[in-house]
């Protein structure tokens, strides 16, 4: 940039004006506004997709009543996705279908954003730079929360606007007030977990620790809500879980605004404690005691591949546990859910997604689609970690030793593929353990095969990610997660049945047969593996020829 242009831009700022006292707020708001708009669009499109698919599949009142009768009182689905009290209406179905997913996504968005903005900035040293301005630790933390609120408002506004527009369709018929309230419920978990993330950012010593603590809390909240909704006579537990409070808002079915009280109270208290702790503790320190010293543990440090395994170990273990728990839960509920839907119109929904057959296998087909997404997240995360090594300059330490770039990238991919393969096998094995305990009648070999079937779509995304890493390294995470998100969106929206096959074919999940409801399509899987490998080879060659790029 020329000096003239720079001077012009400094004199004529195009975005936020940075007052010295509100610079932290303005910086955060600018970052989070974009993120809020993006995720608001995704939330809105999910709502649109669900509402329109319902009106196109369940045209008559009889079909809707049958759906409600089949699914409305199913305890297994209630435990997994929350209760489904209004399946005979578009609004009720939409609320049931998207609520739990959006609540979880919102919570993850909130906790990951705030831990990045608080603890992540502190880890990088940029936080000290900001604190050297006209602010204090307490005020700066409060301003980050305020800036994030701008993102939350954008998230809420976009979700509400798209829901209102969807509701204008006479077949959908969701009023503006209901839409606004529904959007509020959908962002409520984001708001609460922003506060939780702000608190854990004060407790943990690193961003990873802060995010892990918040994620563990989210897992506990989900578990408590699940038990409460499982129909075992302890529904009162719902009030112990923030996710339960959001569920109790009952948007689009039986609104209960009183449930906003614990949500607001929890957010205010937790955020206040976080701000207070931020003012009391030293910068770069943590509230919880942490080990500054440790005895040397040299295992896995004799080679760069060992180092790669060691560095990703905490995240990988978390993913493996998540895969095991998901597989087990899906296996446990498959028989019950399958028996309920057999012969009902809900099987139409499953068949639209590509699941054939009936009973537990049909349900598991869709469950394995969800687990395919999880496995893909594992692969994408591994690639982001590899790019992070380069961006932060740590890769220089490895590549100035007698280690070629090809060898290093090959090792990182070996780690990534090994990790995701273990996750995929786990999905099959633990799903079998669940089904076997319920005598669901789905064989071990079939479920293991279903687990293996999860690998090819992930390899495509991994391959495209490696290609991006080779050509435009700074875009690696964006492209990888965008492809994942796009594939997810196409699968969600695709079930309305009105999408061109050209678009459907761009989704890696659409290419995957929904085993065990159908046999894996090994031909398609072979093509996906081939595409993934070809992309990875091209990416590897490009990586060898390009400059290393720090952030």
């Amino acid at each position, binding site marked *: 940039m020329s000096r003239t242009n720079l001077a012009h831009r400094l004199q004529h700022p195009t975005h936020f004006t940075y007052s010295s006292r509100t610079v932290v707020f303005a910086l955060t708001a600018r970052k989070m506004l974009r993120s809020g708009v993006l995720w608001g669009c995704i939330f809105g499109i999910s709502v649109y997709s669900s509402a329109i698919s319902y009106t196109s599949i369940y045209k008559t009142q009889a079909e809707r009543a049958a759906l409600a009768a089949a699914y409305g009182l199913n305890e297994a689905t209630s435990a997994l996705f929350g209760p489904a009290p209004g399946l005979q209406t578009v609004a009720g179905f939409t609320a049931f279908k998207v609520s739990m997913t959006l609540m979880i996504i919102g919570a993850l968005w909130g906790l990951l954003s705030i831990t990045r903005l608080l603890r992540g900035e502190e880890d990088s040293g940029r936080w000290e730079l900001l604190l050297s301005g006209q602010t204090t630790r307490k005020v700066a933390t409060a301003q980050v929360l305020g800036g994030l609120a701008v993102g939350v408002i954008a998230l809420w506004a976009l979700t509400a606007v798209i829901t209102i527009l969807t509701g204008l369709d006479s077949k959908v018929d969701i009023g503006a007030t209901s839409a606004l309230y529904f959007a509020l419920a959908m962002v409520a978990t984001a708001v609460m977990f922003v506060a939780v993330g702000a608190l854990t950012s004060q407790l943990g010593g690193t961003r990873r620790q802060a995010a892990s603590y918040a994620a563990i809390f989210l897992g506990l909240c989900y578990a408590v809500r699940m038990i409460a909704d499982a129909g075992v006579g302890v529904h009162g537990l719902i009030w112990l879980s923030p996710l339960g409070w959001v569920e109790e808002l009952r948007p689009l079915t039986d609104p209960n605004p009183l449930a906003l009280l614990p949500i607001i109270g929890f957010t205010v208290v937790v955020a206040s404690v976080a701000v207070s702790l931020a003012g009391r503790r030293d910068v770069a320190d943590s509230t919880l005691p942490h080990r500054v010293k*440790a*005895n040397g543990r040299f295992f896995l440090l004799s080679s760069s591949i060992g180092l790669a395994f060691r560095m990703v170990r905490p995240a990988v273990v978390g993913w493996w546990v998540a895969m095991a728990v998901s597989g087990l839960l899906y296996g446990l509920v498959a028989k019950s859910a399958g028996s309920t839907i057999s012969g009902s119109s809900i099987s139409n929904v499953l068949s639209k997604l590509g699941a054939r057959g009936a009973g537990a296998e049909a349900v598991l087909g869709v469950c394995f689609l969800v687990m395919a997404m999880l496995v893909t997240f594992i692969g994408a995360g591994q690639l982001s970690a590899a790019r992070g090594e380069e961006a932060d300059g740590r890769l220089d330490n490895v*590549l100035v030793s007698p280690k070629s770039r090809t060898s290093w990238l090959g090792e990182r991919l070996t780690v990534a593929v090994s990790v995701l393969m273990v996750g995929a096998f786990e999905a099959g094995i633990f799903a079998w353990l669940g089904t076997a305990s319920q005598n669901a009648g789905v064989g071990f070999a079939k479920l293991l095969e279903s687990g293996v079937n999860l690998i090819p779509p992930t390899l495509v995304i991994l391959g495209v990610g490696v290609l991006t890493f080779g050509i435009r390294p700074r875009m690696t995470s964006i492209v990888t997660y965008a492809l994942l998100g796009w594939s997810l969106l196409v699968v969600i929206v695709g079930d309305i049945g009105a999408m061109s096959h050209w678009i459907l074919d761009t989704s890696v999940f659409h290419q995957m047969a929904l085993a065990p409801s159908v046999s894996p399509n090994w031909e398609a899987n072979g093509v996906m593996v081939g595409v993934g490998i070809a992309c990875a080879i091209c990416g590897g060659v490009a990586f060898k020829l390009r400059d290393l790029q720090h952030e």
Partner: protein
Amino acid sequence: MGSMAIRTDSLTKRYGGVTALDGLDLEVERGEVVGYLGPNGAGKTTTIRLLLGLIQPTEGRAEIFGVDCHRQPVEVHRHLSYVSGESNLWPSLTGAETLYLLGRLHGEVDENYQQELIDRFDLDPSKKVRAYSRGNRQKIVLIGALMARPELLLLDEPTSGLDPLMERAFRLCIREARDRGQTIFLSSHIMSEVEALCDRVGIVRDGKLIEMGTLTQMRHLSALAVEATFDGVIPNLSNVPGVTVTEADGQVVRCQVQGSVEPLLRVLATAGVTRLVSREPSLEEMFLAHYGAGDPSGELDHVAH
């Protein structure tokens, strides 16, 4: 293996329209200690990253011990260690774990010397990297590079964050390395460090090597600093050939003399000079002389010329 430790031939690096390094021709003999000076953005780090093969040259080539840095980086890396001014390490590892890892990555470690270096640099290796100060992280990188006793040390601002005591320990290590016959290529902003350690010095500006030689050679080519104190009327020295007055403070005049001092001495002989001091320019003065022309404020011009 080639006789030259480092040789570059028209080495050029462009980023779009920006030329970071422009046709660098550089030769470093085995066993030499060469300083590499330049302000921020002059192309020092670009040169070192090109030598390491971390970035690709737009034109030209670079060799280390006769091996092409671009085509055979792995072979090149067998003979060198690198210290960056930005110590980017793995925060969850301890100092000891990091040194173990760096040693295994390089393949050769003198463990006794490693312990000696830990003692010299007064490093507590049991701490996690995230708990170290910047200077202590830099110590780990330095120890990691020195403990391998490589044939070539590529050092890019190696003493960033070190306190004066540790800087002294660093200088001692570099002298020992030189005595062992190791080659050292040192990029630094610290003139005293370069002046104390280096056999030859290169000065890079806007991506071009504008000066290369021993300190003696460079001093010979540079202006002589003269300070004269008068007891009467001060003569006009600005018209004397080769003389640039840099400062007049009461009866004291400071000036720089380029070339022969005879014209100045002739003028001073007729004036009442009570005190005359002349000295060779320091490396810092020579450096500033090279960069003065690029200083928009003219402040450096004033000092240097």
